[in-house]
């Protein structure tokens, strides 16, 4: 069952190559969409069968692969990965749906998109360290190609920067994994087995250091973040949605799964510093966002700020904060995906994302009123307005972290306050005011184009009012992560 989550998109990606070239461009899109939707359906079925009260992995699949290295094809799903898998399949559908119908080289494009989705799903499912690493690396290649071919003007630079950063991140993660196996003398890379092994504190710290740098690049945390704004600005809208919504989560997922899960003692030693780093990163991202002129960069820096809350929650290592960290991942995934989608609509209709040249887009006759209305709700969700998912997830993060690290928590709270500042500046400049002459002939947005945004908005509000629907999936496993169960 779990393999389907990886194999179906892989199959789709392979199938693209066999589609006849002469056919209309939309056939690739339909096939990709069909594949993505079927993965989503499998996911929903899994969600119903999943038992959130059980500790440990469910639906496990274990096939020996390369035994002399100790690599097994071992998949499993638990409370930590289930919400993220779900996010991945949902956002893949949305990314494909919101891709332009007249895209260049559609077969390659959609096959890369599906490959990306398969890579991310594999990484979330892998219960073998080396297998995780393989998927972690696998997902880089399609993303690199997606940015380098369908990107903006400086796509070459951005794609290469992304590639170098994340490849470096991969090497560090691999080094740490290899070191762990070597130091414990284990014969395999199996996650659950390695969790039972104990290491001296200094070796833990030694292995944790490269792992953390690798993870911080991926999340990204200041000062390893500069690849992200460039990548976002150059990537097309659907790719930004996936990058912000899913791929950054690989970093925070690895943080919880491996840094906290495997090196708990070492992590607790480093945690006070990590909490301060989270505070700095949150403020730094927010502060940079205020000065940006490109709407997409504002959202990108806001991502950096919001991802830092997860580091804060992970540092606090309370039962509440770890659960909140998972929740915050889901919440950030939904909200940032929504914001990138809406910025994408503005860009598609006006041809610019520059806040200084846009004005008055709320105009009900000639502007983009519905996009504007959704954007206002989206930024409110991002700045933690109650009733939407951003509030409760951040509240739980802060409430969980405050008893352990009060000062960094307060710093992050200030960051939340600044979120309203930078987003409101954007809203005021872009959507308020009088519509300028040059913008008065905008193409209309059809309702179907807003379907993904409305779907995300519905989820954001639903989970904001009923947070327990998300939280109860991961609560048990979050506790188990800390107690070694």
């Amino acid at each position: 069952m779990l393999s389907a989550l990886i194999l179906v998109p892989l199959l789709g990606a392979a199938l693209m190559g066999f589609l006849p070239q002469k056919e209309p461009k939309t056939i690739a899109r339909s096939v990709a969409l069909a594949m993505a939707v079927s993965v989503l359906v499998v996911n929903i079925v899994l969600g119903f069968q999943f038992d959130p009260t059980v500790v440990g992995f469910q639906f496990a699949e274990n096939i020996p692969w390369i035994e002399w290295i100790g690599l097994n094809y071992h998949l499993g799903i638990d409370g930590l990965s289930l919400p993220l898998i779900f996010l991945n399949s949902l956002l893949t559908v949305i990314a494909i749906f919101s891709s332009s119908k007249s895209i260049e080289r559609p077969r390659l494009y959609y096959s890369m998109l599906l490959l990306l989705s398969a890579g991310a799903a594999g990484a979330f499912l892998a219960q073998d360290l080396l297998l995780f690493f393989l998927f972690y690396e696998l997902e880089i290649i399609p993303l690199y190609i997606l940015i380098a071919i369908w990107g903006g003007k400086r796509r070459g630079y951005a794609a290469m920067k992304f590639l170098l950063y994340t490849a470096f991140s991969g090497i560090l993660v691999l080094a740490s994994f290899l070191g762990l196996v070597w130091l414990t003398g284990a014969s395999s890379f199996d996650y659950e087995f390695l969790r039972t092994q104990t290491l001296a504190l200094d070796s833990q710290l030694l292995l944790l250091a490269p792992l953390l740098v690798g993870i911080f690049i991926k999340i990204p945390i200041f000062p390893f973040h500069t690849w992200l704004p460039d990548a976002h600005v150059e990537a097309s809208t659907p790719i930004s949605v996936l990058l912000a919504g899913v791929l950054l989560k690989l970093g925070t997922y690895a943080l919880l799964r491996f840094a906290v899960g495997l090196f708990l003692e070492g992590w607790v030693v480093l945690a006070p510093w990590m909490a301060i780093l989270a505070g700095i990163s949150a403020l730094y991202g927010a502060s940079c966002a205020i000065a940006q002129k490109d709407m997409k960069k504002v959202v990108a820096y806001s991502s950096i700020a919001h991802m830092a809350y997860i580091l804060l929650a992970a540092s606090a290592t309370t039962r509440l904060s770890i659960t909140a960290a998972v929740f915050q991942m889901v919440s950030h995934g939904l909200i940032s995906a929504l914001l990138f989608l809406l910025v994408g609509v503005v860009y598609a209709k006006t041809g610019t994302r520059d806040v200084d040249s846009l004005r008055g887009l709320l105009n009900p006759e000639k502007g983009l009123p519905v996009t504007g209305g959704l954007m206002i709700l989206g930024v409110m969700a991002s700045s933690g307005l109650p009733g939407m998912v951003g509030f409760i997830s951040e509240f739980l993060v802060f409430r969980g972290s405050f008893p352990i690290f009060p000062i960094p928590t307060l710093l992050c709270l200030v960051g939340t306050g600044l979120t309203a500042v930078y987003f409101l500046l954007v809203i005021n400049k872009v959507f308020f005011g009088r519509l300028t002459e040059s913008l008065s002939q905008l193409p209309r947005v059809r309702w179907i184009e807003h379907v993904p945004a409305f779907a995300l908005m519905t989820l954001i509000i639903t989970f904001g009012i009923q947070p327990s629907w998300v939280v109860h999936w991961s609560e048990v496993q979050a506790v188990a992560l800390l107690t070694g169960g």
Partner: protein
Amino acid sequence: MTDYLLQTTWIIPFYGLLGAILTLPWSLGIIRKTGPKPAAYLNILLTAIAFIHGSLIFNLIWTKPTQQLVFPWLTVADLNLTLAIELSPVSVGALELVTGISLLVQIYALGYMEKDWSLARFFGLMGFFEAALGGIALSDSLLLTYGLLELLTLSTYLLVGFWYAQPLVVTAARDAFLTKRVGDIILLMGLVALSAYGAGLNFSQLERWANTSPVEPLTAALIGLSLIAGPTGKCAQFPFNLWLDEAMEGPNPAGIMRNSIVVSAGAYVLVKLQPIFTLSPVSSDTLIVLGIVTAIGTSLMAIAQIDIKRALSHSTSAYLGLVFIAVGLGQVDIAFLLLFVHGIAKALLFMSAGSVILTTSNQNVTEMGGLWSRMPATTTAFVVGGAGLFAFMPMGVFWTFQRWFNGSWDVDWWLLAVVLFVNTLSALNITRLFRLVFLGEPQMKTRRAPEVAWPMAFPMVALTIVALIAPTAPIQWPFWLSPTTPLNLGEESIIQLATPLIALSGFVGIVIGATIKLDKAWARPTQMIWRFFQDLFAYDFYIERLYELTVVAGVAFLAKLTSWFDRYVVDGVVNLVSLATIFSGNALKYNVSGQSQFYILTILLGVSLLLWSVLNGQWSIVTNYWSSLLN
């Protein structure tokens, strides 16, 4: 049956929300045929239902003790979040006030906003607004209240920004949101801290928690201060007072709600939090100081304004300052009474001002005059509202002040001085406005000024009647508003002359207001000193300028600095490193075009290097080195 009906109380705020949702087809342009009016009628209908439903509950609850309805919301790990609402005469009474004024305001808006093409959006926002306010009135949980305060901030932003195409509106909406948001975030900090220190977040739990004196004095002081920040923003108190004045750029019906109900909602929360303030003298002292500064400062600002709405909105801040003082002194009863009488009087004044503005298309009082004979209902409303606002005639505020100083409460001479000051200036301000707008010779813009049509006149007259009979309510049922009983009941009056003095101060204010020279073209005083004071008050003590130079400039500078640092230092290092790589490994230069071979090569090189070191036993050299460093 009774119990069942009481159980349905929580539905009342949802009528407003339902109304807001029902307007969507019109505001999104899905239904165009009918025009936006049906959306407005729907909202008015739902508000009326909410009012009637509330009245039924109010009758039932009248003689009953306070009850709570608790809804479990979220349980995670050791945290248990519940949302609770309170059923008591006070909370349901407050709810009735909200829905009642909202009903009148919406009917009024039907006339005021008649020609606006986004009428449906306006009514949707008003419904949302009413829902949040009604929720705050009922809420018995700090978490729920916080959430609703934030929704209130959002709806204020959207209502102030309703005419988003005007430049002044854009900044006003932004400032309103950000000012309140600063207060809200600090309140959230307090909320998180309270919850972390083991206090339950329902007000009754908080009170019990506060009674056990659970935290250090410093922590208690900090928590107290953070909890004050939220209401300070909502009630437009110094240093967060300027948004209310700017928000007058928004549509007037929303302005009526803002100046009467919304500011009261902030103070209502403050009253609910009062037990926490007893933990630390710092928080109650801060409340008193903030209240005094705001009451005196904004009273002075009000008398120098020439915009009719701004003159009235500064006076709102002043009266809320008195409420802050009352809460700081622990005199919750007085705080409630003040909110009640001020809310009604201010709503009436704003309705009257709105009628004047709509008829004359003008907000500048120096360009008006002689309206009394042309607009009798509007004039009556202004007189009744004004008389209820300051203590001279035995109406509204007079009875509250009289209660405050009749010996039941422990009051000091300084408090009497502040009240006298505010009362005098308030009387002066209202008299001045009345003379400028309604008396004197008609000017260009007030010459052809018919009375407003019935949708505006009806609510205005209705509220006039309410304002006339309202002051009898607290006298007739002296304790229905008081959750705490006065401190030294039955003792001799501490300040014997207080009541006559207050009435006298009102009279003095009227006399000054009636005799000062009011040049129609608002001639500037010739003496330097008067000119200085006029500017100082008219420009709000230059507080806005001060903020621009400090907070705003500071944040902007910091943002520029970090952005520069990010671009040239952090990214600069990265680019330098990659440049070095390009020169050392020539391969990169030719692989920028999107080939993946290079990438695979990098990985392979890295992996083989690591594998080589592992297999050769070189790894131990590395680990030993690092281990030795760590030890």
